[in-house]
Each structure stands twice: as structure tokens, then as C-alpha cells.
């Protein structure tokens, strides 16, 4: 009998120990600290929670956060539930958890908040299948809107610096229109082509792209047309200009007329040679191809923004044996011009050529500013890669996009 009694006593004595023993397998140790604060650089809707990692984290354990509008609770509104092995703070080496939440989503503003900003109180609970442990501290925070996003500081500095560059260089170019620009080799090719057309006594065809006057490619193309027209007038050849847009047509007529005047040959200007070929894409192709085949043009210029029609135009021109020069910033069409034309101005070369010819301060100045921006980027890329190779991430920190 006393044996049973002894066993009973013993088991009662051992009970706390045995339960301790069991807890050691999956007992949760709560994190030692729990903070809440207004999320920096935000619109005033979110709050950030941060707490150190607990040593008992596992894929089974979860962190749950309850929120309340009052310090004393009740803490019944669940605002977050995450696996304890997730959402670590960046750069904390998994030592801290860092979570942004928008508590406003969980509380009905009309009933709980009586105007103004409200503070939120949070309670962190760590949960596993068998038990829950609560962190004693209750964290609180008041979300508020910020007036500057400091994470975007580098972006802002770039904006200010580049604006200054553009404005300054345009002013500079107004005073000094001889700003240096490298020679665009395609421009020599234009003169050669015009020379050959003169020798052959055949007309020169200038084909506009499809875009209207609003596009910078068309503006650049018109600038180049002016220069071509002067040369044509000097050489005494025929220049035909095909258009698809009525406004571009009238601008082109004006430009060609002025160029003939400038070359001292206003009598040679024939208005019908600057014409509207068609108003839709494929009829334009048909009309322009027809001119190339019928008139056996000696030189074809394709300038401006082109779409799918570029292939058919350039192919027809090549099959008639004309010298062809293209200039476009439509990158999808460039491959076809490069393989079918004798010379092609690629992308930004079109703008540079127009700036080179027109000497307009607006174009020259902003081209120079863009060059400086490119120069800075090139330097950053080279130096940054070199530093990264030896393990210094300074440059990538400066140019970090967040």
C-alpha cells in the first residue's frame, strides 16, 4: 500500500520536472523586445513593427500581432500572422523582424476613431501548435504622413542636377552657337549621294516617316530636309518630297522653298514636288514605291519615324539601284535600313545630325547636357564595377534605387 503511496508522492514531486522536460522540446521563448513606430517616408497609413528574433523560431511557430485602439485592450483584432522564419529586417542577418502594416485597414474609422489621428497599440504573440506566449510589452505608434521621402534622395538630386545642366547648356549655346559636336559621318554620305544623283541627272527622293509634327523625329527630319534642299538647289537637280501628314506637308513646302531662296534659286522651286503621297500606311508604301520604280530615282532618303512600311520602301529602293540613306530613331525598323541602305543614321544620331546642321541652341544645349549625363553614367559604371570587383559597394549604394 505504502508503495503505491510513495509512487503517488514521487510522481507529484516529479510532475513539474517532467512538464519542464517536455517544454524543452517545443517551448517558445518570446522575443525580448517589441517596438512599434511610424513608418518613415510614407503617406501616413502604415506603422512599422520591429522585434528581435527569438531563439525558438521554427517553421511551425508563428508570430501573430493583435492591435487595439486602447492601451488596455481588448487585443482581439489580428493584424498580422507570419511564419516565424520570415520577414527578417534587411541587413540584420536574421536577428530582427521588420514588418510594415496598415492598421487603418482593420479598424472601422467611423466607430472607433473620433476624428484626428489615432494611436494604435500592439501585442505580439508567438504561437505554435501546442502553446502561445505573449510578449509583455505593448508597443504603440501613431502613423503620420511624411513630406519628403528620404529614400528617393538620390533620385531628387539627379533631377535637380540634370535640370540645371539642361537649362545652363541651352543658355550657353544661345551665347555660343559653335558648341562642339562631333562630325556625323552620315552627313558626308548625303553630299556624296546628291553628287551622284546630279551626275546621273535623275531626281532625288526624300521620304518622310509616318509621325506628325509633334514628334521630335519629324522635327529633326525637317531640319535635315532644309540642308538637303539647299544642296539640291545648288546642284540643280530635282528634289521630290513625299508626305503622309498634311501639317508636315505644309511645313516641308515652306522649308524647301526657303532653302531654294537661300541657295539663290527661288525659280527652281516647284511646289508640286513636295506632295502628299497618301494618307494611310500601305497606300503610302504603294505610292512611294511607284515613284521609285517609275522615275528611277538616283538617291532615296528615309528620315523620321518609320513603322512596318520601312522594309517594303527600302527593299523597293534597293532593287532600283538607288543610293539610299536612312535616319530613324525607330529602333525596331533599324535592322532593315542597315541591311538595305548604303548609310544609316542610328537613333540619336538623327537628333545630333539635325542639331549639327541647324545649330539651334535648344538642340545643341540639351544634346550637350545629355552627353554629360551619359559621361557620368559611363564613369559610374566603370568605377562601380571596378570597386565591386575588389569588394567595395560604394557606387552601387549611391545609385541605389529604392
Amino acid at each position, binding site marked *: 500500500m505504502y508503495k503505491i503511496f510513495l509512487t503517488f508522492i514521487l510522481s507529484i514531486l516529479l510532475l513539474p520536472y517532467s512538464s519542464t522536460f517536455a517544454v524543452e522540446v517545443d517551448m517558445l521563448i518570446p522575443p525580448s523586445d517589441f517596438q512599434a513606430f511610424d513608418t518613415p*517616408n510614407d503617406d501616413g497609413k502604415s506603422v512599422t513593427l520591429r522585434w528581435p528574433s527569438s531563439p525558438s523560431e521554427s517553421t511551425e511557430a508563428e508570430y501573430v500581432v493583435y492591435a487595439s485602439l486602447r492601451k488596455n485592450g481588448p487585443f482581439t483584432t489580428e493584424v498580422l500572422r507570419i511564419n516565424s522564419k520570415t520577414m527578417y529586417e534587411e541587413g540584420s542577418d536574421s536577428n530582427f523582424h521588420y514588418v510594415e502594416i496598415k492598421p487603418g485597414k482593420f479598424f472601422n474609422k467611423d466607430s472607433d476613431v473620433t476624428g484626428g489621428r489615432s494611436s494604435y497599440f500592439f501585442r505580439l504573440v508567438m504561437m505554435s501548435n501546442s502553446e502561445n506566449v505573449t510578449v509583455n510589452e505593448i508597443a504603440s505608434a501613431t502613423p503620420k504622413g511624411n513630406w519628403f521621402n528620404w529614400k*528617393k534622395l538620390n*533620385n531628387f538630386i539627379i533631377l535637380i542636377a540634370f535640370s540645371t545642366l539642361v537649362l545652363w547648356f541651352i543658355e550657353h549655346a544661345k551665347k555660343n552657337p559653335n558648341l562642339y559636336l562631333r562630325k556625323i559621318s552620315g552627313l558626308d554620305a548625303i553630299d556624296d549621294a546628291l553628287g551622284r544623283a546630279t551626275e546621273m541627272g535623275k531626281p532625288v527622293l526624300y521620304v518622310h516617316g509616318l509621325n506628325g509634327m*509633334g514628334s521630335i523625329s519629324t522635327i529633326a527630319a525637317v531640319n535635315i530636309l532644309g540642308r538637303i534642299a539647299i544642296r539640291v538647289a545648288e546642284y540643280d537637280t530635282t528634289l521630290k518630297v513625299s508626305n503622309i501628314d498634311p501639317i508636315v506637308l505644309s511645313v516641308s513646302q515652306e522649308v524647301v522653298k526657303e532653302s531654294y531662296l537661300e541657295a539663290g534659286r527661288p525659280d527652281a522651286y516647284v511646289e508640286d514636288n513636295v506632295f502628299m503621297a497618301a494618307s494611310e500606311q500601305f497606300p503610302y508604301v504603294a505610292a512611294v514605291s511607284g515613284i521609285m520604280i517609275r522615275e528611277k530615282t538616283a538617291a532615296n532618303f528615309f528620315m523620321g519615324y518609320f513603322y512596318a512600311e520601312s522594309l517594303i520602301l527600302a*527593299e523597293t529602293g534597293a532593287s532600283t539601284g538607288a543610293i539610299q540613306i536612312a535616319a530613324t530613331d525607330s529602333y525596331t525598323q533599324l535592322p532593315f535600313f542597315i541591311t538595305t541602305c548604303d548609310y544609316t543614321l542610328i537613333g540619336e544620331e538623327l*537628333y545630333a545630325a539635325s542639331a549639327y546642321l541647324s545649330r539651334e541652341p535648344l538642340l545643341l544645349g540639351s544634346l550637350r547636357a545629355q552627353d554629360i549625363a551619359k559621361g557620368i553614367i559611363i564613369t559610374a559604371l566603370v568605377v562601380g564595377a571596378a570597386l565591386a570587383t575588389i569588394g567595395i559597394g560604394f557606387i552601387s549604394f549611391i545609385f541605389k534605387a529604392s
Partner: protein
Amino acid sequence: MNFFKRTIPLIIAFIMGIMMAFQYYVPHEASQSLLKVVTRWGITIAGFAVFIGAYSLFHLHWNKIKRKVPGWGYSTFVFFGAGITIIFGLYNGGEFFLHDKQEGTMFDWMYFNVQVPAGATMFSILAFFMASAAYRTFRARTSEATILLIAAVIVMLGRVPVGALIWEFLPPIADWIMSVPNMAAKRGILIGVSIGAIATSLRIIFGIERAYLGGGD
């Protein structure tokens, strides 16, 4: 009058530009509400742009018909096509246009049996011209064009299933071309073009670039 015609538009563009550029750096709720309202207005204004396109198209073809330029007869088909589509659209399967859009009306029939086949066929015509150009004009005239054509041939073969049957290394080489040299060059272009776009935007904001205002005084 010049003030209303010239100065006010420049002021509007300046204020809008500066305000929206700086808005980006301000996370405050007020700045977000501003963004929401202004973009909402922009969507509505842009909706009216359809009438500019319609006016340009109809004006152009109407002039052709009026002046009896060669081929003016074809222009009547523009009016015919637009006319019946708009009539069916407004009729809206008997519900008329003030009600919600109905499904399966004659308006939808016009779309699926005229606009879709004609539009889809239009650019497939280029398949033929592409092949004829390949035969007749794509020439390795210069070293640049040679590099271009070699890359093109590898990509063309490497991207279709038959590539692996011709030579098992064709697809991986094509993938490498796409993701290393092609990627690098396209990134260079992208950065250059973006700088250009930013410069253009700045010129618009500061009233230096005025092409969008159109000609005249």
C-alpha cells in the same frame, strides 16, 4: 490676347510639370490625393482625343471627295465603314446608346468580321515582303551588316524547334546572344533614350520646347 494664347498655356505646363515632378518625392497623403485627382482628370481629357483623330481622318477623306482627287471614290468607303459601325454602335442591339453596351450585337459582328480579319491580315502581308527582301536585298555589304545578318540567322534558327535538330548548340547560342550582347546594347539604348526623354520633358516644363502647342502665334 497673346497672354491667353501663349503665356497661360506655358504657365499651365510649367505648374503641372513642376507639381507632378515634385509630387513623386512627397509621400504624404495630401500629395497622393492630388496625384489621384489629377490623373483621373487626365484620363477624362484623353478620352476626348478620339474626336481629334476622327476629325482628322474624316476631314482628310472629305477633302479628297470634294476635290475629286484621283482615287477619291475609295474615300467613300471610309465613311461607309465608319457610318455603319457608329450606327450599329448607337443602336446597341435595340437598347440604344444611353444604356449599357449589349453583347453580340451587329456592332460586335462588324468588329469580329471586318476589323479583326482586315487588321490581322494587314501586317501579315509583310511576311512575304520579308522573304523577298531576304532574297533580293539583305546584303552583307559592310562588316556591320555582316555581323547583323550572322546574328539574325543564328537567332532565327535558334528560336524555333528545328534549330536544335540542325545543331544542338544553336538554341543555347541564340539564348546567349539574346541575354548578353543584345541585352547590353539594348540597355545602352534604353539609358540613352531615357535621358533624352527626360531632357525633352524638362524642355516642355520650362517652356523651351513648344512644338506641342502647334504653329501660329
